[in-house]
């Protein structure tokens, strides 16, 4: 036994304390930091792929009339923009942050299941090769919207099974990632790191992981039924065979609504980390924040019908979905008020992560307000399927989730690289993003209210002005993101040394601030001591 132990530790020292070099380091990665980095790089790549599609969409919509593409290609762009941004950009970014930060925050040596972690990342490039490859098969890509409603989605050709398998792969990847997060948090917290002491980012991810496990299989089931309908003669959703297209919508949104919260709860966690740091004051009402996250997670399962009011629904169902949807405003309000109270009587400074968090606070609230408006069923009939909805969900996803992700990157980048980044450039990136995201999306509220349906490649001439404004905002927003890459690359290459605490006002709830910047390849090999 003694011999075995000795050889094991010798092996440990030689092979694992330093990362393997070259491509092997990444292909066979089991280290949570490396896998986290790969997730984040992948997500940034997809952010630019999906963003380029958005630029093309905005270019076609710059003028009325069709100048650039056939409507079919336009529909392929909107469909794939949605899929790439949701499954390729936002979700992997959060998983990447979870990989990097959860073990560091809770004092775990790594994720609980490192090989599965490797698998769940390496599935993704294949999933997206299938998805993006589907744009180049005969007949073109999927053009039925990211929601894949049948019967329209079933009219697709060879691209269709590629989409279905891509969704299956993304789902498998997400489920594995979620299992890893839950097992890590439940089993690998350092002694003394009680659940109620756990940092909010880890908490938000715990709830998110349960949502993922609950709903990704539902999506997999829904798309499998689509596949069967298309190729194996079943009639799940085909009315001519006794099927029901509305059933797809129910199943899809039973996945789709929790999915919305999968993309925002980790953002709530991030904001709850950043605001206290730059207010130099602990988070106000940390316990009620945790309860708010958990109740939002629960409510997200019982509101899916609000996506489908216009599809015809019994009065009782309309009332139920309206009230449960409105109820979500209560815990969300609690979060906003707690964040405001965190800043109250604080000592605020405005470094880039704080700027992104503040923009989140204001602009996510605007998305929340339009969400409340959309919950009012009779008014929803006028908003549904218009640009008002497009404005709403882009407000919660871009200055919501995406700004939170950027804030998180600016917050933890010095921790990851050991270097401070160029604050001026990052601040410029923030201001350009914050201004142009509003130029891009705010006019879309007007377009929707004035009657412009979403998902159209061409529009009546009275919608010209605001579409132009929106497109100009879109191009400028897109170009501004190049600064993000410059800041990150510069920071990875070098810069002023970052301290372990990184920020002056760091509120040490998470253990990531107790280790050096950059952290050694292996952290918390022996459990840290928490008072």
């Amino acid at each position: 036994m003694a011999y075995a132990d000795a050889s094991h530790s010798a092996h440990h020292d030689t092979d694992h304390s330093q990362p393997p070099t070259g491509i092997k380091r990444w292909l066979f990665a089991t280290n949570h930091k490396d896998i986290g980095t790969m997730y984040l790089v992948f997500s940034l790549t997809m952010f630019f792929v999906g963003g380029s599609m958005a630029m093309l969409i905005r270019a076609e919509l710059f003028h009325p009339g069709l100048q650039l593409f056939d409507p079919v290609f336009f529909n392929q762009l909107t469909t794939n923009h949605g899929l790439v941004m949701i499954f390729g950009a936002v979700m992997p970014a959060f998983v990447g942050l979870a990989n990097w930060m959860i073990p560091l925050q809770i004092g775990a040596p790594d994720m609980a299941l490192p090989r599965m972690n490797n698998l769940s990342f390496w599935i993704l490039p294949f999933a997206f090769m299938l998805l993006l490859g589907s744009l180049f098969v005969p007949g073109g890509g999927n053009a039925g919207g990211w929601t894949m409603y049948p019967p329209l989605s079933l009219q697709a050709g060879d691209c269709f099974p590629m989409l279905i398998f891509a969704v299956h792969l993304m789902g498998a990847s997400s489920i594995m990632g979620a299992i890893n997060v839950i097992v890590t948090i439940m089993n690998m917290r350092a002694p003394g790191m009680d659940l109620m002491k756990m940092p909010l980012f880890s908490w938000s991810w715990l709830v998110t992981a349960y949502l993922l496990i609950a709903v990704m299989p539902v999506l997999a089931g829904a798309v499998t039924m689509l596949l069967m309908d298309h190729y194996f003669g079943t009639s799940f959703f085909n009315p001519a065979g006794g099927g029901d297209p509305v059933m797809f919508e129910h199943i899809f949104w039973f996945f789709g609504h929790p999915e919305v919260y999968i993309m925002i709860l980790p953002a709530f966690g991030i904001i709850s980390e950043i605001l206290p740091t730059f207010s130099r004051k602990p988070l106000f009402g940390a316990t009620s924040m945790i309860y708010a996250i958990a109740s939002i997670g629960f409510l997200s399962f019982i509101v899916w019908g609000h996506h489908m009011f216009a599809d015809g629904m019994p009065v009782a169902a309309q009332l139920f979905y309206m009230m449960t949807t409105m109820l979500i405003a209560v815990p969300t309000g609690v979060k906003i008020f707690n964040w405001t109270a965190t800043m109250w009587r604080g000592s605020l400074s405005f470094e880039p992560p704080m700027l992104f968090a503040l923009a989140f606070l204001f602009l996510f609230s605007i998305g929340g307000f339009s969400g409340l408006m959309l919950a009012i069923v009779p008014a929803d009939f006028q908003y549904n399927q218009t640009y008002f909805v497009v404005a709403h969900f882009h407000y919660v996803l871009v200055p919501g989730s995406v700004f939170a992700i950027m804030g998180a990157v600016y917050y933890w980048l010095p921790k990851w690289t050991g270097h401070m980044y160029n604050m001026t450039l990052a601040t410029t990136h923030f201001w350009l993003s914050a201004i142009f995201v509003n130029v891009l999306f705010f006019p879309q509220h007007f377009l929707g209210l004035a009657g412009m349906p979403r998902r159209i490649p061409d529009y009546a001439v009275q919608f010209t002005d605001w579409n132009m404004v929106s497109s100009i905002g879109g191009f400028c927003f897109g170009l501004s993101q190049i600064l993000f890459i410059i800041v990150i690359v510069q920071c990875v290459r070098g810069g002023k040394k970052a301290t372990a605490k990184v920020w002056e006002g760091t509120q040490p709830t998470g253990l990531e601030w107790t280790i050096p910047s950059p952290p050694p390849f292996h952290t918390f090999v022996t459990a840290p001591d928490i008072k």
Partner: protein
Amino acid sequence: MSVTRGDVDDSTSRPQAFWARGLCLVLSATGLAATAGANTSNGINLPLGVTSLSRMMYGLHMEVFWVCVVIAVLVFGVMIYALVKFRHSQGAIPDTTMLHSTKVEIIWTIVPIIILVALAIPAARGILFMEDMRDAQLSIRVTGYQWKWQYQYMGEAEGISFFSTLAQSSNFARQLHSGIDPKTVPNYLLDVDKPLVIPSGTKVRILLTSQDVIHAWWVPDFGAKRSAIPGFVNEIWFTVDPGKEGIYRGQCAALCGRDHGFMPIVVDVLTPADFKKWVEQQKAAVKQAAAHTGTEPRTAQLLPQTSN
């Protein structure tokens, strides 16, 4: 009075109109001006519309909008005050003892609930009003196709049935690289070859279905939108106010494939007397056509298989 989307088009594409609307936006944001004057949309807000339904929707929309504005002013006000007042650069000292307050937390949980209940009650009343299909005086079966609408009249106007597709002028202009400036096309993308004709002051019930994929029939000025789903019949109703006769325009509101953006809806609202004349004309035309072909029109055969 004929209030049409098209009438608004020409004025709003001028730069002055653009700035005027910008000003209107600023004013409305500061609560100094009402955002809706005309029945149709002013380009930044919902239309007041010409039915009791659209007015109810507009009322709820403005109500929840102003509630949001008031909350936003209060919450953003507090945030901005904190941003200005508690700045590190101004030597603010953080109060690290401020961790939580059960009292405040209960207040900011209860107050939103009260506001939400206050919003939900009129909204629930609106739902009941909207879903009351009783006593319809005219029923029209509307079927969505890729990419056109079919209108089949029922009851007294039984036998009148036609398709409504994008007008030729728009169809030419909307082709890729057509070289035709859409601004020169009257009611670009919002014009059809044959509009739906209905009488004013009459409760019209639309029975909505589809023959292929999911479409949605939407006329904003009527507050009428519902999905047309194959295998389902959805209902909507509306009564256009007497005196508001004219042309009203809308579009398909559910992604339905290649030409989703090119299957508009145009409704010509006539006075009941004019509508009666129109029905007689149409019936005579149907009869004449039948005489030519030697068959009686049999509407039942035209109904899609999916009827139930």
